[in-house]
């Protein structure tokens, strides 16, 4: 029993001297300030947007302001998340990227229904009282630190001065008392120590609450959002596989099947020629020509089938992504190099997606970028993420929202909760980064 009490007391008293406390206090200070700023911006924009949109004339402007407020809130949410990671090492993933609709009305509608943005708004609003407590905790800690130095101050500066020394004691809400002698400064130091201790623990407490808010309001999503996200990506996955099968059927129909039909026709005609009534002197030239055509069709049909089979499952993938990507790079029209650093081998489905992403990105670069060099980089991160980066030194200007290529990739990747980031300023270079989980 005594042991326990001693241990708890030790923890409580040692807390101010830990590195964690420094971080927590810094977070209180900085996070408090960003919280207040975020609150002000959000409130002003929301209030303006709502009031203006109430009047008939201002509806459009008001709506636009509202949308702007939502977008800014998403950004502010990102800022808050980053501060939490930077100072508290508290990691919360970003909510899924906004999926813009097509058409202006649909776009506006989707923006206004952007739940992640509304949750970010609510965080900004709830953050104000939290920020107040955080700033209070920081302040009393700072004052406490100052109070602790009083005995030293007295010795160094005040022993000759006349009059009392004023000590700020921040409890309950602020106040002062006077100190008239060196002995009194010890009282100030004790009060300071108490303030520091209180500020420290207050900071820890309020930050714990803030973490919860960050997770629930700035995190990926609530359960219902997750469900609708899963529904959306499941639809995509089903459509994607149906489209893939249709593509295979079309390729077979227009490729190998057609060539084999032509081959059968050539052979049939050649056989006719040979079994003509005057078979004693068959028309060698024509038969040879027909057999040549048949041979050509057989070879082409084989090539078609090989391409098709490779398109369904690249055999090189059996030896793992690095060797499959090396094979891919070797056949690229633009010189391509591969660096790979893969720890645990990803699930086969993930490997396949990564492979086809790489193939598509290389094809894109070849078609549009005028690049001289492509770099393919694939590695696993400690957080259980497989990252594929394809960089080219081309002209840039690739856009993930337009052009079905990148958008299609983004869809395919989202079916396994992956994501794509495109950095492609005009003038290049273009880097497309694909993030996939290791398990599908």
């Amino acid at each position: 029993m005594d042991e326990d009490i001693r241990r708890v007391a030790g923890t409580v008293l040692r807390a101010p001297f830990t590195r964690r406390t420094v971080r927590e206090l810094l977070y209180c200070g900085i996070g408090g300030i960003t919280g207040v700023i975020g609150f002000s911006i959000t409130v002003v924009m929301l209030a303006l947007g709502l009031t203006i949109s109430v009047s008939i004339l201002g509806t459009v402007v008001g709506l636009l302001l509202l949308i702007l407020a939502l977008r800014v809130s998403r950004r502010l949410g990102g800022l808050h998340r980053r501060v939490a990671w930077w100072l508290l090492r508290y990691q919360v993933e970003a909510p899924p990227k906004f999926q813009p609709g097509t058409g202006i009305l649909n776009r506006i509608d989707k923006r206004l229904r952007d739940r992640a943005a509304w949750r970010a708004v609510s965080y900004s609003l709830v953050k104000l009282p939290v920020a107040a407590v955080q700033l209070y905790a920081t302040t009393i800690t700072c004052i406490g630190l100052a109070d602790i130095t009083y005995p030293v101050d007295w010795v160094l500066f005040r022993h000759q001065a006349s009059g009392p020394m004023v000590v700020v004691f921040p409890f309950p809400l602020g106040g002062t008392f006077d100190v008239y002698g060196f002995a009194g400064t010890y009282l100030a130091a004790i009060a300071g120590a108490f303030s520091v201790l209180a500020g420290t623990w207050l900071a820890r407490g309020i930050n714990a609450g803030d973490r919860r808010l960050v997770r629930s309001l700035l995190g990926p999503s609530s359960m219902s959002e997750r469900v609708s996200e899963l529904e959306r990506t499941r639809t995509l996955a089903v459509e994607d596989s149906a489209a893939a099968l249709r593509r295979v059927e079309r390729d077979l129909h227009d490729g190998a099947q057609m060539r084999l039909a032509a081959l059968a026709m050539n052979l049939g005609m050649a056989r006719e020629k040979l079994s003509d009534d005057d078979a004693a002197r068959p028309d060698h030239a024509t038969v040879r020509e027909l057999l040549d055509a048949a041979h050509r069709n057989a070879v082409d049909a084989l090539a078609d089938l090989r391409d098709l089979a490779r398109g369904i499952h690249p055999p090189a993938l059996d030896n793992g992504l690095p060797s499959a990507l090396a094979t891919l790079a070797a056949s690229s029209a633009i010189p391509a190099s591969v660096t790979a650093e893969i720890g645990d081998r990803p699930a086969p489905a993930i490997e396949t997606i990564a492979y086809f992403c790489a193939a598509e990105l290389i094809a894109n670069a070849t078609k549009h970028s005028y690049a001289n060099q492509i770099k393919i980089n694939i590695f696993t991160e400690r957080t259980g993420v497989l990252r594929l980066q394809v960089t080219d030194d081309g002209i840039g200007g690739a856009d993930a929202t337009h052009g079905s290529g990148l958008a299609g990739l983004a869809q395919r990747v989202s079916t396994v909760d992956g994501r794509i980031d495109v950095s492609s300023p005009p003038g290049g270079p273009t880097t497309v980064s694909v993030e996939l989980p290791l398990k599908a």
Partner: protein
Amino acid sequence: MMRVVIAEDAALLREGLTRLLEDRGHSVCAAVTDGDALLAAVAEHQPDVAVVDIRMPPSHTDEGLRAALAMRKAFPGTGVLMFSQYIETSYSAQLLEGGAAGVGYLLKDRVANVAEFAAALERVAGGGTALDPEVVSQLFRASRQRGGLATLTPRERQVLALMAEGRSNSAIAADLVVSGGAVEKHVASIFTKLGLPPDESDNRRVLAVLHYLGG
């Protein structure tokens, strides 16, 4: 000699067919690549028969079939041989709705046997019928007349299938390597067992058989 229009979007097959038919002394008036061009070519050349691919541009689904049905309405005297990589029961049903005269539906594979393919095309051009064995076996499988079919001997079922394909007695005889008289006996026996009115014309006979199978 037949005058033929070909509608087929794959150049390889279009040219192959043209050559095959011309080699056998027929005349290919036009070789087109979609349904609209087919109707225009038929209107212009008034051919004996058209060979039509089912899947053609722009939608690559069944425009060949739709063009063929339109053609049957507009030019009832012109035979249509559908030519496809698949047999679809619903397609053959639509095609036979307006009667079996001058209608054919063959897998593209059948072109490997040049003589048989040419014979089928000639049959269709002459107002006869040419159904792929696949079509017929699908009809057999889907037929509700299992009881009637069960009374036939295996040989009689073979003869019935060949009749359904649209073949004449002599062709059936050649195919089964039996005499013409033997075929006639089988045919008479089949018609008695199934309760069909005997009919001399190949055309009406196909229709009766198909009607029986479909019923």
